[in-house]
C-alpha cells in the first residue's frame, strides 16, 4: 500500500515499502544492544535519591511550578509527602489532579512546564526534578494498590467517549468516579492512544502504557469497545441519541504531506507509522530501518523518529527543518537529546524533490530557506542534496474531521481546523464535549488529560444539574 500524494493522508499502520536495492534492514545491531537501547532512558530515582531531591523543594507559597502544570498538580504538596515517606498520600495528590500522573512523569517536557518554572531555575538553573519525583510516587502506588479510587454511586447516566487516548480515558475515569456508566469507542486494537502508539519507546518501556490503562480501568464502570471507528462503524447522531453525553478524544488521525514530487516512492514513510510499528514490535531488532535516514520536520515526532532510528542502528540520521532551532516545536532539551544520540540537525532547508533509484528513494534535494519578516521560511533558490535510504515525514499531524460529518457537512463547529470548544470543553453541540489533540491548544499528553478532566466535570454538572 502506498500513500496518496494529497495534502493530508490518514496515518496507516504497517505501511512499509522496502526495495531490494535500498539499504533498509532489520537487526542492524545485536538484539541485546537494541534491547538496551530501548530500555528506560531515565531510570527511576532510588528511594534515597528521591528523598534528597525532594528535600531540595522549597515548598513554595503560590508555587510557580503548579501554575505551569496544565493539570495544576499540587507539586510542593506531593514532593513534601515524598520527603516525609508518605508515598501513598503523595501519589494521590498527583493522581487526583492527573490520573495519567505515571505517564506524565515520563513523557512531559518538564523543562517547558513545571521544572521550567521551578524557582530553583532562577536561583541556580537546576530545578527540582519534579518529573522524576512524580514517577517515584506514582510508581510506588501502582505497585502497591490496584485502584485507590472508588467508583461513585451509580447515577444511571450513560456517557459515550470516543477515543481511548489520554483525553478520552481521563474523561472516562473522572466520569466513573462520579458514578456514570462510560462506554469508550476505540478504533485501534489497544487502548492508550499515542501513549501506546506514539510516545518514544524508551520513555515508556516494559509495556507501561498498557499497565497504566489497566490500572486506571480497575475503577470499573468503563467499558472499552475496540475496533469501533466513529464515522465507519457508528455515527455521532446515534451516539447522541443513545447516550446522555458524548466526549470526543479523537486525537489527530492525519499527517501532513510534504507536497513534493516523489512522496510515493519506496522507503518514504510517515514518521508516526514507523514509530507505531516500533512501539508495537515486541522485538525491536525486528524493525527495519535505513542505513541513512533523513527525517523531515521540527517537532517531537521528528526527534523521536530520528533518535529511535539511531537506536535501531541507522548509521547516519539527519533531521532537516525549514526554520531555525528556536522555531522548532521540539524543546531545546529534546533537540539536545537527539544530538546526544548522534542525530545531526540541519536547519533552514525544505524538501524540494525526492530522488529515486528503481522506484525507491535514494536521496532528497533540499532548498535552502531563510526567514522573512513575518517569520515564515522562504526559499533562497540555493539547493543541496542528502543521500537517503529511508525518508521519514514528520511535518505535522492534523485533525481529520470526516468522522464528524453527515451528508458531507460538518455536525459541529471547528476552529483552525480542529473542533471548537469553550472553556468547559463543550463543542457547539450542547451534549457533545471534546478535548486533547482534536481541539486547539498544545499537543501534549498532560494537556489532553486536563481537557478530559475538565470536560468530565462539566458533563457531570450538566447531567446532575
Amino acid at each position: 500500500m502506498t500513500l496518496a500524494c494529497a495534502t493530508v493522508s490518514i496515518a496507516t499502520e504497517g505501511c512499509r515499502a522496502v526495495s531490494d536495492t535500498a539499504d533498509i534492514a532489520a537487526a542492524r545491531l545485536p538484539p541485546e544492544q537494541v534491547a538496551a537501547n530501548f530500555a528506560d532512558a531515565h531510570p527511576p530515582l532510588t528511594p534515597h535519591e528521591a528523598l534528597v531531591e525532594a528535600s531540595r523543594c522549597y515548598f513554595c507559597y503560590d508555587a510557580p511550578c503548579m501554575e505551569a502544570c496544565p493539570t495544576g498538580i499540587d507539586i510542593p504538596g506531593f514532593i513534601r509527602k515524598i520527603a516525609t515517606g508518605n508515598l501513598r498520600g503523595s501519589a494521590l495528590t498527583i493522581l487526583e489532579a492527573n490520573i495519567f500522573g505515571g505517564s506524565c512523569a515520563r513523557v512531559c517536557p518538564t523543562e517547558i512546564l513545571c521544572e521550567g518554572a521551578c524557582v530553583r531555575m532562577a536561583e541556580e538553573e537546576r530545578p527540582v526534578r519534579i518529573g522524576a519525583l512524580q514517577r517515584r510516587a506514582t510508581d510506588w502506588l501502582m505497585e502497591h494498590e490496584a485502584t485507590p479510587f472508588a467508583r461513585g454511586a451509580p447515577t444511571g447516566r450513560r456517557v459515550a467517549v470516543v477515543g481511548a487516548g489520554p483525553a478520552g480515558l481521563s474523561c472516562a475515569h473522572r466520569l466513573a468516579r462520579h458514578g456514570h456508566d462510560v462506554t469508550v469507542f476505540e478504533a485501534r486494537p489497544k487502548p492508550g492512544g499515542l501513549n501506546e502508539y506514539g510516545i518514544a519507546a524508551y520513555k515508556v518501556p516494559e509495556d507501561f502504557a498498557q499497565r497504566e490503562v489497566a490500572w486506571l480501568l480497575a475503577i470499573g464502570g468503563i467499558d472499552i469497545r475496540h475496533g469501533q471507528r466513529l464515522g465507519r462503524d457508528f455515527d455521532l447522531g446515534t451516539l447522541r441519541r443513545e447516550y446522555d453525553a458524548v466526549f470526543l478524544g479523537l486525537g489527530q488521525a492525519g499527517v501532513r504531506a510534504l507536497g513534493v514530487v516523489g512522496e510515493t516512492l519506496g522507503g518514504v514513510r510517515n514518521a508516526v507509522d514507523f514509530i507505531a510499528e516500533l512501539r508495537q514490535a515486541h522485538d525491536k531488532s525486528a524493525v527495519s530501518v535505513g542505513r541513512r535516514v533523513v527525517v523531515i520536520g521540527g517537532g517531537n515526532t521528528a526527534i523521536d523518529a530520528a533518535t529511535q532510528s539511531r537506536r535501531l542502528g541507522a548509521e547516519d540520521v539527519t533531521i532537516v527543518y525549514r526554520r531555525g532551532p528556536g522555531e522548532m516545536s521540539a524543546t531545546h532539551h529534546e533537540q539536545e537529546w537527539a544530538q546526544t544520540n548522534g542525530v545531526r540537525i540541519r536547519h533552514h532547508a525544505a524538501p524540494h524533490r525526492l530522488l529515486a533509484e528503481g522506484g525507491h528513494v535514494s536521496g532528497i534535494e533540499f532548498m535552502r530557506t531563510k526567514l522573512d519578516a513575518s517569520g515564515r521560511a522562504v526559499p533562497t533558490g540555493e539547493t543541496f542534496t542528502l543521500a537517503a535510504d529511508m525518508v521519514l515525514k514528520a511535518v505535522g499531524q492534523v485533525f481529520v474531521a470526516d468522522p464528524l460529518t453527515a451528508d458531507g457537512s460538518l455536525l459541529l463547529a471547528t476552529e483552525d481546523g480542529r473542533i471548537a470548544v469553550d472553556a468547559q470543553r463543550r463543542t457547539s453541540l450542547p451534549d457533545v464535549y471534546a478535548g486533547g489533540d482534536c481541539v486547539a491548544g498544545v499537543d501534549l499528553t498532560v494537556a489532553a488529560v486536563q481537557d478530559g478532566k475538565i470536560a468530565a466535570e462539566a458533563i457531570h454538572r450538566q447531567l446532575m444539574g
Partner: protein
Amino acid sequence: MADLSTVFAGIRSPNPFWLASAPPTDKAYNVVRAFEAGWGGVVWKTLGEDPPIVNVSSRYGAISYNGVRVAGFNNIELITDRPLQVNLDEIRRVKREWPDRAVVVSLMVPCTEEAWKAILKPVEDTGCDGIELNFGCPHGMSERNMGAAVGQVPEYVEMVAAWCKQHSRMPVIVKLTPNITNILAPARAAKAGRADAVSLINTVTSITGVDLDRMSPEPVVDGQGTHGGYCGPAVKPIALHMVGDIARDMPGYPISGIGGIASWRDAAEFIALGAGTVQVCTAAMHHGFRIVEDMIDGLSNWMDAKGYRTLDDFRGAAVKNYVHWGDLNLNFKTLARIDQDLCIKCGLCHIACEDTSHQAIAARRVDGKRRYEVIDAECVGCNLCAHVCPVDGCISMVPQPSSLPRLVWGQHPNNPMRVREAAE
C-alpha cells in the same frame, strides 16, 4: 600564619582540637591514627574498674534530616569495655611516642574515695597529661550511681574533684552533664573542689526515634530500646549556651568546649565564647579523622584574615556581648529588606510572616509577575523571613537609625517593677 598552640589547665597541645572521650579514643590504634592526622590531643575513652563493663550490640541511633545523615547522634554505649591494664599500657606507649600531644585520661569509678584513690596512681604512672572526670554519661553508668548521677549533684562533683586533687598531682578537668537545670551549680562545685577546668557538654538524654514497625525506641536491642545520650550538630546550641554561661559567670576559669563541633567555624564560636580547647566526637565518627586538616587551616586562615595572632587574641571576645535579656536595648529596631533582583519568588517569606507572624510581607503581582514586599509599618524585625528565605543575601535585616536613647527593660514604662520603683 596564626599560632594555634594551646596551654589548657597546664596541658600543652599544638592546636586546640582534641578528640573527646569516646570510641575514637578507645585504643592506641585509633589515637595514633588521630595524631597522625593532626589532632592536638585526645581524652582517652573513659576507664573504669575491672572487670570491664559489657556493651550491648546495636548501640547507636541517628537523626537524618532531609537526607542529611547524622544531624544528631545518640548512643547507649558505656565506658571502655577493655581491661584497665590494657588501656594503661597503651596510654603510656602513645604518650611516650607523641610527647607534643595532649593525652588526657577520662575516668569513672564508684563514688568512694578508695575507688578514686586506687585508680589515680596507675593512671598518673602512664605519664598522661591530666585526667577528665566523667560525670556526664547519662545512661547505664548513671543507674550504677556514676556518670550523670554524680554530675547532677553539685556536692558530689565537689567531693570527687577534691579527692582527685588531693590524691594526684595531675591537672583535673571535670566533664559536666547538660542534663541539669543550671549548669553553673556543678561548674562552681568543680571549682570549689579545686578542679583545674571543666569540659562540657557530655551527651543529652534522648531517644532518637521510635521504630514504628517494631514499636520500640531506637536503637533497637532485641526488640527493645533505652534512652541514650544525644550529640552531634543538633546539640551545639545547647553546648554553646552552657559554655557561655560559665564563661560569663566564672571569668578566666578554663573550659574545654564540646558538643556538635564539626568545623573550624564551630570551634571559633566556642573559643569566642570562652573555650580554651574544643573536643570532637560525632564529626570524627561521621567523617573520619582527616576533618582536622580543615579545622586547623580554616581556623588559622580566618585568624590571619582577622588579624588574630594567637587564640588568646579572640578567646572570650564574645562573652562581654553575651548579656541577660534585660540588658538588651528595646529601642533598637531592624527591618527586613528584600533584594528584588535576588528574589526567586518562592513566597516563603510571605507565607511565614502571613500565617505565623506579623502580616508584614505583601504578596503582589506586578504585570503578572510575583513580587513580595515588606510593609515597614508592620515589620517588627523578627528575622523569620530572612531565616526561611532560601537565597543567601536576598533578605537582609537592616538596623534602622534611631534618635531614641538606649532603653532596657529595667527602665521601660511597661515594666511594673519600674513603675513601682517610681511610685515609691
